[in-house]
Every structure is written in C-alpha cells, then in structure tokens.
C-alpha cells in the first residue's frame, strides 16, 4: 500500500457469466467500489495464456491478484507468485497455500447445501430427490453429498438420484436430466447447474438454486438457493494486505456460513409455503453451524444414484 491506489486484478478461465467466477467478480466489484480501488479482470483466459496474464498483472504492479486456478492455472500462478513475493495472490485451488504470499480458497457451500437437503428431506412426498450436477469433481461432489446427508438426516427413507451432465454449460441437457429424474419420481431437485428450473416448472416440482440467489429465475419453483458470497473473503484479504498482515493461508473459513461467506438465500415466496416445522429446523441447525456446535461433513467422493 502507500499513496498509490490499491489495485486488484482477477483472472478467470471462463466468462464471468459462469457462476463460480461470477461470484468472485461480483465480490471484487463490490469491494472495489466500496473502498475506491482499481479493479481489472481478464475472462475466458485460455489455459495456455494463463501464465502470461498472471505475469502481466504482476509486472504491472497490482497489489492483489485473484482468480480461479483450477487445473490450468495452478502451476503458472504459483510460479509467478514465487517471482513476485511482494504481491498477494489468492486463487481458487484444490491444493494447499504456498508461502509466503499465495493463498487458496474454494466454494465451501456444503453447509447451505446440507440445509437445503434438510428442507428437501422434510418436504418430499415421493421420498425421491434429484441432483443435476456438472462433472464429478470435489467442489461438486461436496455439495451433492452434503445435500444427500442433509436429507437423510431428517428422512432416512429418502432416495437420491444424481446425473452428471458432463459439461459446465449445457442447460438443455441439464433440463433433460432433470426431466428424467422427475419422471423417476423426484419432487425436489438440487440444481447444481443452470437448466433445471425449466423442467421443474413444467412438472410443477421444486428445486434449489446454487451459487447465487436464483429465485428470480423461477419464483414458483426455487425454494431457496445456496449462495456463495466472496465479499467477506475479498474484503478481509484487502484489509490484511493493506495492514501488512497477509500471509499464505487456506481462506476456506471465510467462505463458511460462520463468516457469512455462504448462506441459504431468502425463501422469497416460499416463506409462506414452508411449514413452520421445517423453517425452525433449518434455523436451529443454522445456529448450530454458525456457533460451531455442528459440523457438516465434507465428502468429496463421486455420488451414484440410489
């Protein structure tokens, strides 16, 4: 820091419409506006160009560089971080932080996913739930497993179906996967990906959004959503960098419910529709999670339909 304006750069491998990168982008924008910082980003960065972009920002003297490093970005960003020890880096990554300046984070929203599983487990009439997910990777499996565990915790007879559509973006395919589950009896669906709500709407069943509050996409269908809010993480990081206390850490705690890094979105119209019993169960559990008396298990193995 100093007199110079503080600068944040973000590097995304996909476009910012992708929810994961979108969450980072939104948070950076918000923090930049709030604290009057300079913010620049590069989206759709190809794997082969990742290192170039990291180095370009580093060279230009940005103070804080964030982004998603999964796969292609891991090595390049870590190599660059070694060369610029004065700059703070925080990347979404499945690996550990790298001293002294490279922290990692991830979407730790298994807690709200567990909560939505609880709602689904209590509400289902068919005892069949569905999950439409992208690709079996830890970030995705974690949520799917938490949703299932949550449902089973309140309703042991529940059966959970899951379909991996095999890509990040294919709403028509996600929809077809959802249709198949609905025809198989599922009445509450966890929509890890875009595309599920349309099927739910047509069949008049219910769904849970993921990553952002997606109620507006289908207000009659979306009970609630598991929101990942990167704001606390970015904000706290900027503060730490400014007061010189930045160090390489796993920043996952700042994505947890306790830090308001994730939460269950508002029920919107469903506030009136959900039985009080269900709402109390959720709020009780929320309290326990927040104060640490209950820990949602993290299971990252691939899920198979019951």
């Amino acid at each position, binding site marked *: 820091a100093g007199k110079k304006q503080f600068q944040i750069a973000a590097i995304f*491998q996909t476009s910012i419409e992708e929810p994961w990168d979108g969450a980072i982008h939104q948070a950076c924008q918000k923090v930049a506006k709030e604290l009057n910082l300079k913010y*620049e980003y*590069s*989206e*759709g960065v*190809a*794997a*082969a*160009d990742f*290192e*170039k*972009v990291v*180095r*370009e920002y580093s*060279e230009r003297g940005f103070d804080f560089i964030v982004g998603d490093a*999964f*796969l*292609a970005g891991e*090595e390049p960003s870590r190599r660059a971080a070694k060369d610029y020890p004065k700059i703070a880096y925080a990347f979404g990554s*499945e690996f550990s932080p790298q001293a002294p300046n490279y922290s990692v984070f991830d979407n730790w929203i298994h807690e709200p996913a567990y909560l939505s599983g609880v709602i689904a487990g209590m509400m289902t009439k068919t005892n069949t739930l569905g999950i439409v997910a992208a*690709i*079996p*990777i*830890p970030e995705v*499996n974690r949520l799917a497993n938490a949703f299932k565990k949550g449902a089973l915790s309140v309703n042991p007879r529940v059966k959970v179906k899951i379909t991996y559509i*095999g890509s990040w973006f294919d709403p028509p395919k996600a929809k077809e996967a959802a249709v198949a589950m609905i025809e198989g009896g599922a009445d509450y669906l966890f929509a890890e990906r875009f595309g599920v709500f349309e099927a739910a709407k047509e069949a008049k069943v219910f769904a849970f959004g993921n990553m952002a509050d997606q109620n507006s996409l289908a207000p009659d269908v979306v009970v609630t959503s598991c929101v990942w809010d990167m704001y606390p993480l970015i904000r706290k990081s900027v503060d730490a960098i400014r007061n010189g206390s930045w160090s390489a850490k796993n920043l996952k705690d700042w994505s947890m419910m306790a830090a308001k890094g994730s939460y269950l979105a508002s029920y919107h119209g469903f506030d009136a529709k959900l039985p009080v019993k269900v709402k109390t169960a959720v709020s009780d559990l929320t309290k326990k999670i927040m104060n640490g008396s209950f820990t949602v298990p993290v299971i*990252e193995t*691939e899920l198979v339909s019951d």
Partner: protein
Amino acid sequence: MVGLSIVRRQTLPPWAEILLPVAAIFATLIIGALPIVLAGGNLFKAYSSLVYGALGTRFNLLETLVKASPLILTGLAVSFAFRARFWNIGAEGQLFAGAIAATAVGVYGTALPSWLVIPACIVSGFIAGGLWAVLPAFLKTKLKVDDVVTTLLLNYVMIHVMGFLLYGPMQAAGSSWPRSEPIMDAAHYPILLPRSRLHLGLVIAIVMVLAIWFINARTVFGYRSKCVGVNINAAHFSGVNTDMTILKTALISGGLAGLAGVGEVCAIHYHLLMDISPGYGYTGIVIAMLGNLHPVGVALSAFFFSCISIGSQTMSRMAGIPVYIEGVI
C-alpha cells in the same frame, strides 16, 4: 471431368496468389473494426494497442513467439494434409493424442535415462498424433469414408478419450479434477531465453517448417503427395501407390499436430488437462489456407495469428473492448 474443364486454362498470376491472403487480412481488419466502433472504442488506439500487445515489449514479443509454436505446427499439419487432398479437420484431436502420449512418457517413463526423456516424448507424441490421423486416412482409402467428417468426429472422440483418462487411469493421485500427475523435470523442454517462456517448441516448429519444405520440394514422397492431391486418378494410373501415399501423408500430418500437443505439455502446462488447446487445431486450418499451404507461408500466417491473439488480449484491456472481439477478429 466437366468441373476440370471449367477451371482448365485459368491460372492466377503469381502476384495475385500473394496478394489474396494479404487482401483477406485487410478485409478482416476492416470487418473487425465494425464491432470495435460499435463498442465505442477508439479504432486507432485499438489497433495500435494490438500491435503493441503483440510486439511492443520483449515480454509481449516472446509471448507471441511462444504461442506461434503450436500454431505453426498445427498449420503445417493441416497444410501438409490438404496438399494431398486429405481433408484433415482433425488436427485438434491429433494434438490431444500427442499430448496424451507425451504425458504418458513424461509421467511414467521414469526408467528412461534423463537425456532420452524429451526425445521419447517427442517421438511418442508424433506417433500418437500420426496414428490418430492414419485411422481416418485408412477409412478414406480402404472404405471410401469421407475424411472431413471422420476427422471432425474423431476430435470429439479424442476429447472423450482424454476425459476418460483424466477422470480415470491417468488422474493425478489426490486430485479429483481432470488432471494428470505432473511430468518429470527431465521432460520439460529447455527454455531458450532466460526470464521467458520461449521454449524448444519454437525450434522444433522451425525445423519442421524446413523439413516439410524439403519433403515437398525434394523428395519422391513429397512429389507423390502433391500429385495425389492434384489428380489422384492420374497418380494411381502412373503407378503411384496412392493409398500408401495418403496414409503416409496422414501420419506426418497427424504427427505434426501431435508435436504441438507435446509442446503444450512439456513446455507450457507440465501436465495434461482437458483445456490444453484453445482450438489450435482449428486455427491451424485457417492458418494453412492463409499460408497458401506452403510451409513458409504457414509459418508467417501462424505468426500473424499469434500476434492477433496475443495483441487483442492487450487491446481489450487497454482500449476497453470486450475480449470476445478477439474471436471476431
């Protein structure tokens, strides 16, 4: 026969052959200007930042060269195949095949003496890419299956093969993401200039340009491959084993694309992942055509494409123009 008689006596003067690609480039720059203006950008600033981004600094220039290496190789791969009328749209898949093979050697070939690792990566990548191209060539020659479609479809097959490997046997221990173990250090391409990413791949690409030039101009095989491309009936009739010529052409073409994949693994990523190529194989087609199917032309047009690609990233940052315009240009 009738088609031939139409174009029969028509030869373009040589200046037109050179001018045509240049005109095409200008046309694209002008067409590209349209959305820039629409997006509210300053045209002059945009293009000057493009040039600056591609060539303006040592860093940028070297990055442009880094990107040019795979593009030269895929461009060569396509041009060599097209010259023999083997419509290889499958350089992308062949690139993946080469990358997979290089990774396999780089990760599991620990028993090899270290000086042999890089050559082993290169050779296996070449062969893997080549075989992946020989398959459609075989279908074309023996079963008369259209090569445009098979090569295109095999790209998708290869993507899924890679998906299968990266979620299965080749997945790095401890990771659930589709990535392989890193390759060993001995498999890393040497860096040509300190503090840069410029690597052996560029040398390989340039050697290949010269090699293909030599093959085309001076060898029996290059001559046969040209004849097969111009008139396969006449070549067959004259005793040229046309099937064999096409198969060999495919092997070399796919091998070149495979080398591009080796370079991406051994010099850029150091492990295998799904997004190893941002469409280098497809860009190779455009590069080959723009380069008039001549190896030197291919090298130049690959460099040009690399400039555009690298430069437009800078352009979008500096002139405030969305990065998707890169695709437009």
